């Protein structure tokens, strides 16, 4: 017994621990991070191999079967959409045109139009240019509808926050940045065989805009806007000192891009989104103190620079005070809500009404300037509800 005990003790003494104390101490961190490292690289491999945004040759050939607007991921969706051979009309816009479904566009334009809406909130010149570039590379478009937003007064290098430019550049190594929860969800769906995309946010979007409209159509909101208008009325028309040459995003990005589309035989329609007259006062605080002058000047410069191009048309409606002066049409000062008005603006593209040309752009500009300067708030919705 005793000998066994001694023998056993000596064996215990000789036995070396598997890891040194420093290794033992560090093990939890090292093991955990090895798992994170392995997990992440595995996920990257799966996502890249699946290619849920169709950016590679082996990309998941996704089908667009529903009358959807993929508002949640449209900025990552440009290649998927532009590679669909059946689509011949693209709407490239911002939040002012995000409400149109492909069917709305097809119905308004008539004929054999198969349309898709690539509008997303808060576009900036650089990302707009990337979207148009991807369309030029991949799409078999016959018509492209572009919105000429106020953002064209900005620097051409400005990019929308969160725009995935890494998906559309030549550099492959930065594609790893696409691996996030959104991509994982898309990859998972593709792996499960769901190759047709369903945004399922149309209902939510409709509710969102309706809620916005209801909360905007309040006497208190109008009083607030009225106070802003009265305070800045004397300075709203202050000259910006800018000239046509200073709109680099127009001169260096949009106009050359349109020219290329035209050379390829694509019809280009440019929509000038309807901004309320109150918007020029309201957005002075976060865009520019000379917003009115810059926006109108950029429009004039743009129209004149593309006026000689065939197959390019510009449409505008906001020189009519019944449209842009009536806040009952809007869900906020910069976004139209009135469904009838929204339909009419699209239909104008087929009836060719409300065209803006070099011949009438100055008169158009003068009208808006005058209307904005003398603007008194009008709201047909509140008037109607008050009468009831």
């Amino acid at each position: 017994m005793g000998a066994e005990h001694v023998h056993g003790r000596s064996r215990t003494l000789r036995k070396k621990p598997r890891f040194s104390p420093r290794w033992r101490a560090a093990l939890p961190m090292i093991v955990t991070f090895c798992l994170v490292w392995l997990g992440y690289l595995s996920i990257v491999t799966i996502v890249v191999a699946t290619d849920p945004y169709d950016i590679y040759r082996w990309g998941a050939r996704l089908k667009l079967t529903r009358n959807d607007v993929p508002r949640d991921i449209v900025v990552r969706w440009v290649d998927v959409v532009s590679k669909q051979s059946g689509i011949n009309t693209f709407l490239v816009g911002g939040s002012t045109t995000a409400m149109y479904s492909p069917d709305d566009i097809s119905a308004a334009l008539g004929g054999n139009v198969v349309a898709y809406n690539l509008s997303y909130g808060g576009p900036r010149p650089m990302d707009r240019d990337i979207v148009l570039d991807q369309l030029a590379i991949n799409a078999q478009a016959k018509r492209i509808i572009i919105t000429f937003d106020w953002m064209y007064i900005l620097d051409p290098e400005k990019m929308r926050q969160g725009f995935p430019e890494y998906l559309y550049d030549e550099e492959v190594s930065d594609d790893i940045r696409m691996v996030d929860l959104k991509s994982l969800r898309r990859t998972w769906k593709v792996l499960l065989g769901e190759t047709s995309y369903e945004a399922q946010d149309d209902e939510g979007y409709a509710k969102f805009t309706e809620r916005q409209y209801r909360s905007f159509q309040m006497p208190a909101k109008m009083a607030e806007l009225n106070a802003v208008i009265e305070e800045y009325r004397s300075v709203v028309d202050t000259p910006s000192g800018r000239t046509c040459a200073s709109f680099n995003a127009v001169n260096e990005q949009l106009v050359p891009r349109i020219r290329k589309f035209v050379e390829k035989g694509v019809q280009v329609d440019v929509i000038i989104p309807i901004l309320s007259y109150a918007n020029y006062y309201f957005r002075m605080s976060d865009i520019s103190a000379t917003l009115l002058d810059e926006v109108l000047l950029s429009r004039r410069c743009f129209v004149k620079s593309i006026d000689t191009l065939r197959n390019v048309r510009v449409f505008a409606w906001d020189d009519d005070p019944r449209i842009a002066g009536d806040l009952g049409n809007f869900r906020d000062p910069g976004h139209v809500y009135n469904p009838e008005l929204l339909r009419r603006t699209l239909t104008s593209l087929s009836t060719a009404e409300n065209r803006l040309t070099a011949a009438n752009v100055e008169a158009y500009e003068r009208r808006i300037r005058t209307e904005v300067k003398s603007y008194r708030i009008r709201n047909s919705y509140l008037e109607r509800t008050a009468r009831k």
Partner: protein
Amino acid sequence: MIFIDPLFLFLFLPVTLIAFYLALLTRGRNEALLVIFTASIIFYAPYGISSVFLLLVALLVNFGISNALLAMDDSNPQRKMLYGCGQGYNIASLCYFKYKVVTVLLGDNGDFLTDIAGVAIPAGISFYTFHQAAFLADAYVREKSVVEFFEGTRSLRSGFWAFCRYGAFVSFFPQLIIGPITYLHEFHPQVKSRKFISFDPLNIAVGLAFISIGMFKKVVIADNIAPTVDLVFGAAGAGAVMDPAHAWIGALSYMAQLYFDFSGYSDMALGLARMFGLLYPLNFYSPFKANGILDYYRRWNMTLTRVIARFLFTPLSIAGTRYCAVHRLSPLPTQILSLWLPMLINFQVLSLWHGAAWTFVAFGLMQGVWSAAEAQIRGSKKYKRMCKVTSPFFRLLVERAIFFMLICLSLAMFRSESVGAALHLYAQMFGASLDAPSAFEMREPVLMLFCAFSIIYLLPNGVELLGRYRPAMMTYENKSYGFAFLRKIWRPSWGWAAFAAILTISSLHYVSRQPPFLYQGF
């Protein structure tokens, strides 16, 4: 590459670490440092071939001149001239490539001189130039580590290895772009020690903890605050009106963004260096817990402060004091020459180091006047008498409140697009447009600010948290504030590992956006 790039974290770093430890354990120090040097050049390459070329030339020039300075006799009159040439090269390259002096002076008439200067400002040029300038100064005074470093570098082979060691010291990627600016006597003894040639798994654990904390600070906190900052400062730049609440939210958001951006970088730099078995000097230590501007600069970009203080403030102040003593000047001119003037110059240089802009000139002036005034007040009899009769806690609160207000205003100047935009923002902050419309929803930015400042004031910083494992060299002796029981609580346990993993995974959620660190622009 930047630290938050998944390519860096998941490929470059593991590969470099494996190559480094393989070289270290199978070949030796020199080979391991060669791995570091090569990896650092690869890390730097995406910033442009011209930037890499400029870095290599700067390394060769400073290395060559330092070697020559040590070889020359002190009595050699050409030694001083050579030193001047070396420092002249450093200053000239900064002026040429960063401040574009040639472009400013010659305009379009400078032909190829202007063309070369027209390239983008090489990343990290301010940091590695100051790094090497300090090294050159140490070589000139024959600092012990520098002498040791160059010992036995007479043959081509030993010269090559010495250059690799020097290259690793200057261009080591954790500190190449944004510092800390290190002295050789902080780096060389570590590399020379026996500890360096062994693999300590705890270094990896501590490094990973720092990286996860730093990445969270940058990617989750700073980058989520950034949109508010861009909105408010963009609007101020455009001369737009805004109500005081929005203007203040913008200014405070920038404070928080800059804090977490730089703090995140500093933590990641310490962590990365630690994974290679190296301790680096502390560069960031809860600066908003400072009780005044003088304390602030002992906590913010500390290694830059000490380099500028060493080469500029101290010599100027000593020269001023001597001049006054020799000429027996009265107290007022003595104060001006020994304190105010050196302070103003010191902060002007410190500020212009960030770039050539009038906002930086104004910022430097504000900081200089404030520092000199604070030094004057703290040295006065009245202040000392007041210290005797007031409670330290009360004094800390008052001093911190004054400091907070002034640093908020001066950082608004630092961030603004122009001096006019900063003045416009000040006007909005102090109620010039009380009825201005709401530029953005305030709930989320205010919530973000609340979280950010709670972390700043209530939680320990990374170095305090990991204090048990000596995470960094102390650059200055700084007082710790806040809850003592929260300090030194980190251990590489499963719980903390899970916490670090959560921080990392939360950061990876935002991986699609890769805004550079703010200090990368300087």
